[in-house]
């Protein structure tokens, strides 16, 4: 086993060694050392309070002052010095329940949680959903993400890419479970805000009511800050409101979650453009002490084609989607071409269909396999009737009398260029043709529109035309000014913006409190270690990720009704049970090694434990070979693998999945459980000298000793 790097764990190991070595002769010192060890273990297991560290300091000092021998004084000094050398580490364990080294296994996040840019404690809330505790699940999610319902519908779900269950069959449907719980909690009136701290009289201005800005506002409001969000549009939501169409994300979902912020006292000021309607100086004069820019990336790239600016029927996708979201439901034309291959192009195309366009084509210069849009979105678009024209390079927008008539295109072929691994589209000479259309919607990407920030002359920008920040603190080059979201990363994901919001809120809080800013981004924090859901191995293996029911195709072509209809209660509860609880099992593989190499049984077929080369996993196979010896459980440092005797059976389980269940054999003499028959056979083979067992009788170790011993110690008279 590797040496621990965590100061907490190192101290625990040293204290444990000192106590068990017996070097602390004085009973009082030994008791104090044991108390320190117990408090240290609380810290390592995430169950310590703010009083633990002062208590340890005081006990260590007691050892130093009153220790009767060098060993006692040295132990006190050891503890005292580690506390003074690593105060942040101890505080981190106590306050954030975090062990960045991974040594304190109870405090290490699961891969899905680590993958979430907002660091949501996924195994905890998924298990709560499995238990039917939807409102509690939402509470856990909102510790790190104030928009569980929005994310349940539109998140790009990086968590599912890291989901360990995906190494067995398919990842747990984390995103849809979140949507299910949010909707259920909201409909039951159990979706509540946590209690906010008392007002601290500091004012923060957030520019932009997108997911990032609003997330920061939420966490700042909870910390007692007075927050005003200034938004150029007449509605809150930013890109999730005006960039994502309603058939993916109904407006009511955004409105209900925004209302939770209003309930916390966050002030929204709409139709107000920073730099035009209001300035930094005006806000400073009103007493705002910190500023957070979450202005997004709403400016479309130009195609730079002839004719692009000559016709009003050429409208960029961002503007088109925004107009539709704000109520303009006129179709852009009968035959529309959308240029691009990303999610925005797909959204624009599907929106056109719903507005009544007869023919909607997506022109993309590469092949389908190169298309960056989500596969599911592409499939749904095709089902609805969107045509895809691959290897199509637009050349010119042509028309007459102010109306678009066609898009001149060239066919392309993919060629691997020297020194590059990527296939590049190369035009096929002489392949020009005209695609008859009456509207063109370019969707080739967005950038930050920094016109509104021109008054901030000291604000530094990257070469990518995004605001330069320290990604650990989201602080810009101007004191007291922070930035996040697409304005910092370029067009990115909703969940990244939300994660940035929480990070920025923490940094603004540090700014006001005079605490140094973080040097590295925060590590996700675990909020609980809830009991696992118990089930047989066969259930764990046969449960399959449910297919999402979709709206009927005719409605999808004609209405903005939500396409994905959500999971039923039964589907959600069953899906939650597929979670492997990687917050408990760290997949160290020690159980597999011990069973295979030490016991020579090799009963554990747990191939999912390897990230790079996962091999077959079948929980059901364990039962075939396992003798229920318990060596795996004994060597599990995380309590993930457990063995227990109950209901006349010996049961072996990993994170609630019952791997083996065997009937117990009882001692013929005293009635004590002595293990399952398979286990006794194994022992018989290994220890031939166990005569009583060998001769066909089942007796426990104690009774066997009694029967084979030459005399009974209890009946031997005591020496005088």
């Amino acid at each position, binding site marked *: 086993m590797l040496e621990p790097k965590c100061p907490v764990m190192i101290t625990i190991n040293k204290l444990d060694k000192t106590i068990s070595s017996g070097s602390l002769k004085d009973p009082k010192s030994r008791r104090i050392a044991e108390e320190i060890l117990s408090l240290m273990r609380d810290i390592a297991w995430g169950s310590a309070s703010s009083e633990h560290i002062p208590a340890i300091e005081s006990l260590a000092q007691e050892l130093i002052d009153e220790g009767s021998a060098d060993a006692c004084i040295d132990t006190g000094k050891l503890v005292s010095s580690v506390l003074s050398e690593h105060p942040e580490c101890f505080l981190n364990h106590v306050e954030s329940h975090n062990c960045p080294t991974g040594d304190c296994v109870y405090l290490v996040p699961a*891969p899905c949680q680590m993958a979430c840019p907002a660091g949501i404690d996924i195994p905890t809330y998924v298990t709560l959903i499995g238990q039917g505790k939807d409102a509690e699940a939402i509470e856990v999610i909102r510790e790190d993400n104030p928009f569980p319902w929005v994310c349940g519908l539109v998140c790009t779900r990086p968590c599912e890419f890291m989901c360990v269950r995906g190494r067995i069959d398919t990842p747990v449907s984390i995103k849809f479970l979140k949507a299910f719980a949010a909707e259920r909690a909201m409909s039951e009136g159990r979706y509540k805000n946590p209690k906010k701290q008392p007002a601290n009289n500091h004012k923060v201005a957030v520019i932009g009511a997108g997911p990032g800005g609003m997330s920061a506002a939420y966490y700042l409001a909870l910390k007692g800050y007075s927050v005003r969000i200034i938004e150029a549009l007449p509605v809150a939501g930013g890109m999730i409101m005006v960039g994502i169409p309603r058939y993916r994300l109904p407006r009511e979902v955004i409105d209900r979650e925004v209302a939770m912020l209003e309930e916390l006292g966050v002030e929204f000021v709409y139709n107000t453009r920073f730099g035009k309607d209001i300035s930094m100086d005006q806000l400073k004069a009103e007493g705002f002490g910190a500023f957070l820019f979450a202005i997004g990336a709403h400016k479309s790239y130009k195609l730079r084609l002839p004719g692009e600016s000559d016709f009003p029927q050429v409208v960029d996708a961002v503007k088109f989607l925004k107009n539709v979201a704000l109520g303009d439901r006129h179709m852009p034309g009968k035959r529309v071409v959308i240029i691009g291959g990303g999610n925005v192009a797909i959204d624009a195309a599907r929106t056109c269909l719903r507005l009544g366009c007869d023919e909607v084509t997506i022109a993309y210069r590469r092949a389908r396999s190169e298309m960056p*849009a989500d596969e599911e979105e592409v499939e749904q678009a095709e089902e609805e009737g969107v045509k895809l024209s691959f290897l199509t390079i637009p050349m010119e927008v042509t028309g007459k009398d102010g109306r678009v008539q066609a898009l001149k295109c060239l066919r392309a072929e993919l060629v691997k260029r020297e020194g590059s691994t990527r296939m590049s589209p190369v035009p096929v000479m002489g392949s020009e043709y005209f695609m008859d259309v009456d509207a063109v919607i370019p969707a080739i990407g*967005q950038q930050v529109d920094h016109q509104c920030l021109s008054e901030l002359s000291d604000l530094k920008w990257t070469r990518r035309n995004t605001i330069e920040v320290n990604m650990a603190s989201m602080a810009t080059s101007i004191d007291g000014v922070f930035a996040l979201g697409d304005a910092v*990363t370029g067009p990115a*994901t909703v969940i*990244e913006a939300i994660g940035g919001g929480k990070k920025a809120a923490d940094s603004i809080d540090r700014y006001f409190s005079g605490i140094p800013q973080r040097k590295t981004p925060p590590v996700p924090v675990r909020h609980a270690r809830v009991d696992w859901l118990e089930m047989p191995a066969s259930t764990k293996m046969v449960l399959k990720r449910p297919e999402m029911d979709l709206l009927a195709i005719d409605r999808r072509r004609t209405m903005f009704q939500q396409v994905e209809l959500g999971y039923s209660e039964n589907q959600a509860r069953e899906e939650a049970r597929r979670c492997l609880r990687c917050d408990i099992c760290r997949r160290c593989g020690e159980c597999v090694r011990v069973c295979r190499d030490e016991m020579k049984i090799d009963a554990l077929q747990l191939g999912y434990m390897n990230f790079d080369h996962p091999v077959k996993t079948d929980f059901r196979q364990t039962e075939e070979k396992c003798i229920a010896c318990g060596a795996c459980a004994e060597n599990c440092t995380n309590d993930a693998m457990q063995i227990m005797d109950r209901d006349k059976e010996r049961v072996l389980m990993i994170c609630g999945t019952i791997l083996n269940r065997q009937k117990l054999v009882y001692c013929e003499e005293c009635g004590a459980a002595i293990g399952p028959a398979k286990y006794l056979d194994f022992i018989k083979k290994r220890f031939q000298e166990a005569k009583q067992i060998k001769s066909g009788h089942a007796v426990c170790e104690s009774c066997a000793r009694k029967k084979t011993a030459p005399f009974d110690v209890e009946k031997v008279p005591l020496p005088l």
Partner: protein
Amino acid sequence: MAFHRGQKIEVYKKSEDEGWENYMDEFVGCHGVITDPDSTINDPDSLIEVSLEDKGTHRLPQDSLRLLAD
């Protein structure tokens, strides 16, 4: 687009790009999955979202990444 969603990658070197921050040095050698490639403009120069095993999700310059064989 050099990378696709779901592909396994290795952070095999530091990048000279301005998007590379000091704390990212410890990511060199880590394996992970592409979770959000440059999804709009096919720009090999853009920062892409990568989930690294035990290190979280970050946006990294593409020149620091290489694909891992399945």
